[in-house]
């Protein structure tokens, strides 16, 4: 392995550990503290009756602060890992699953931090950072030869379009993950009595704001994808499964955007659609495991 490539991998490893620790901190914070109160009462028969009641309150804020700090470390290391790999390869590292996933880890960490700053909802990290850490585990599980930088096959040599096409997709996946996290917390906040969570209305807004970034990016991804297909294969749209999987995901979020304007749909049902959208996103991301087709050569 070339020195820079090796350094990139070590930076990724550092990022992976920081993000794993951040995820744990956020989960502890989000789950809250369960207080068990024990009541004892002496009865006139001489027995003592005890009863317990549980009561949940906000998790220790210190954990949330640690979560934020560790996420910042993770984001920083992941970014450096991307940059070192970029300079080693001479092109932005978005050509195989190892590289997509590495860039995703960097993006999701930054996007999470941005939303945390914007809304001050730290609970989201319990899901977004778990996703980030999960993605690092996936990277660890990939065959080791993917960590090498290999020359590109001719069809992948259209660099700038390829970079923006895949980059827009990966960034939109990061925002969809934030929307998913907000939707899950929305369903909890709207349907359970959990006073320490942000209001359902705010969580709905977080999810919507995430989609307002992700949906246009995903639209750009589809457009650039077809431009690139035209350059490389001479047709804009082949109805290739990877393309139609992306179209499917795009339409799911299109449905979401409409339901949000409908009375009776905004809220729970919109949140369920976002959860479904996350499933569609995963399906698109890992589509190469299901499909052959033109997109298969990026390597699993």
């Amino acid at each position, binding site marked *: 392995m070339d020195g820079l490539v090796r350094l990139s991998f070590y930076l990724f490893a550092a990022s992976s550990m920081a993000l794993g620790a951040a995820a744990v901190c956020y989960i502890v914070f989000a789950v809250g503290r369960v207080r068990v109160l024990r009541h004892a009462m002496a009865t006139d028969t001489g027995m003592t009756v005890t009863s317990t009641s549980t009561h949940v309150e906000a998790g220790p804020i210190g954990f949330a602060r640690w979560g934020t700090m560790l996420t910042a470390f993770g984001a920083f290391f992941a970014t450096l890992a991307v940059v070192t790999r970029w300079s080693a390869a001479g092109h932005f590292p978005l050509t195989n699953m190892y590289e997509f996933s590495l860039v995703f880890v960097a993006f999701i960490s930054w996007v999470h931090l941005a939303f945390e700053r914007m809304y001050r909802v730290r609970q989201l990290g319990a899901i977004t950072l778990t996703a980030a850490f999960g993605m690092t585990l996936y990277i660890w599980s990939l065959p080791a030869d993917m960590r090498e930088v290999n020359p590109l096959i*001719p069809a992948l040599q259209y660099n700038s379009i390829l970079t923006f096409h895949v980059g827009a997709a990966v960034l939109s996946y990061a925002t969809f993950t934030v929307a998913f996290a907000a939707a899950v917390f929305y369903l909890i906040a709207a349907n359970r009595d959990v006073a320490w969570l942000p209001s359902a*209305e*705010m969580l709905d807004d977080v999810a919507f704001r995430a989609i307002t970034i992700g949906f*246009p990016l995903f639209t750009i991804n589809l457009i650039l994808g077809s431009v690139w297909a*035209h350059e*490389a294969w001479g047709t804009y749209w082949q109805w290739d*499964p990877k393309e139609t999987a992306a179209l499917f995901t795009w339409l799911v979020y299109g*449905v979401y955007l409409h339901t949000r304007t409908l009375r009776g749909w905004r809220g729970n049902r919109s949140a369920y659609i976002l959860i479904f959208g996350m499933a569609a996103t995963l399906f698109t991301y890992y589509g190469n495991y299901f*499909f052959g087709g033109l997109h298969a050569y990026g390597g699993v």
Partner: protein
Amino acid sequence: MADISARTSPKPSRSPIEVGVDRIWRFFCSVRAAVAEISFLTLLVLIGTLRGSAVPQWIADAIPATQGFVDRWYAWDVFRSGIFAATLAIIAIAIIVCTLNRVPGIWATISHPKVTTTHGFLRGAETSATFQTAQDSAALTSSVTDLLGKKRFRVLTEKVGDETHIYADKNRMAKLGTFPFHLALILLLVGGIVASVYGFRDQEFIIPEGSRRNVGHGTGLSVELNRFRDTWTEVGIPSQYQSEVTIYDGNTPAKSGSIEVNHPLTYRNATFYQSSFGNAAKMLITDPNGSVLYNDAAEMGIYTLRGNPDAPAGLIRLPEQDVQITIVAPDTNPTSQPQLDQLQLRSGELWVHVEPLGGNVTPINTPMGTGEDGVVITQGQPARVGGLNLTFERETRFTVLQVGYNPGIPIFIIAAFLMVGGLAITFYFPHRRIRGIVTPGPVGATLKLAPLAKRDWSGKRDFFSLLQQAREVIGVQPEVKHPANANDYDYLRNAAT
């Protein structure tokens, strides 16, 4: 205004057709129906996507009873099906109807919003702020309208008795952003239809070196191959080949360039890809008076004759003379079987056969033999065959290009910009609205403000950040009515501490 007149004129009796049309119209206008239509389309896309994967087979493997169903699933070409096309058509109609239906109302709220409001509305609003001041009504009004103006709000006021009603809004064009976006969806469909009706894809567009050939299909384009170059590896595999061409638009040279594998050349809506190449025979054909009938290269080896299957054959058609000329070049392939070669041509020789166009012999079945049926000619020596003078001038090469012609491209480009632009306007410049009333009082005037931000967290947050500044400008602490979730907003959190 349009919607008021519509509401105030209910027709006493309407024909069933009118009622039906109205129902259909309203069905297409409804966002609820749109959700159903898009969901159905989404489902179709999912079915079509999974068809390209092993997932249906997994289902069949898990539940053998579904095998028949799964087979039919694999057999169904969703994206070319009538149902898919019909769904797209319905969505297109819905978008058009919905747009036509919404534009007048939205335009009215943009250009002539209702300025006046009621105390009841302000009192009932979920979020509002009341400033009890010592200023007079005019001063208070001007300080709040100045502030809103500075924050890039459009401010409209109207006097009602001694009160001043205020309506302020920002990014009022945002509501229009969904129109370019949805129209772009229709443009994509239009572009797709235009591309499939007027566009084409020619897998085998052949040009001999030095010749110019029409692209055809109504494009008005033709391409001249100036030069063909190939490089070979040591083991005899072509490593790269390159066609240097000039593209003509009508009769004017429009673009020159080189086409290589993976480096296509595009002119207007046509894109040329390098595909393959072969040998050609440069021929000069004149009639007995010496006027030139044909002076071009004929590509050889695109097909071979049944009677002489290993030798490359070519065909020249001269419709005005009503003849077609079949030519065969020597079989130079060392791996061919010699017993199949009846002509035994040597290098520099061609076998030529002339017969009427539309005769009952298809070129591939041209009878072999010499004399009446065919003549062997030698390079550089004119020969008289079937009343024509033929000269085999030299051997050249031809290139095989693929041509994609897609007149939908400009439509797609416009659609792409409309989509991204429309989304950006809709999402990043949200429409914000505030209503208010300034009421004079014995001590000083009272200002009551409320945002139109029901179920809109960001709208409320923006309102609170405006209050922060209003507080400084007006110089009094407002009394704020706010939603239960006070902790969500910086303004309220700071006010509490």
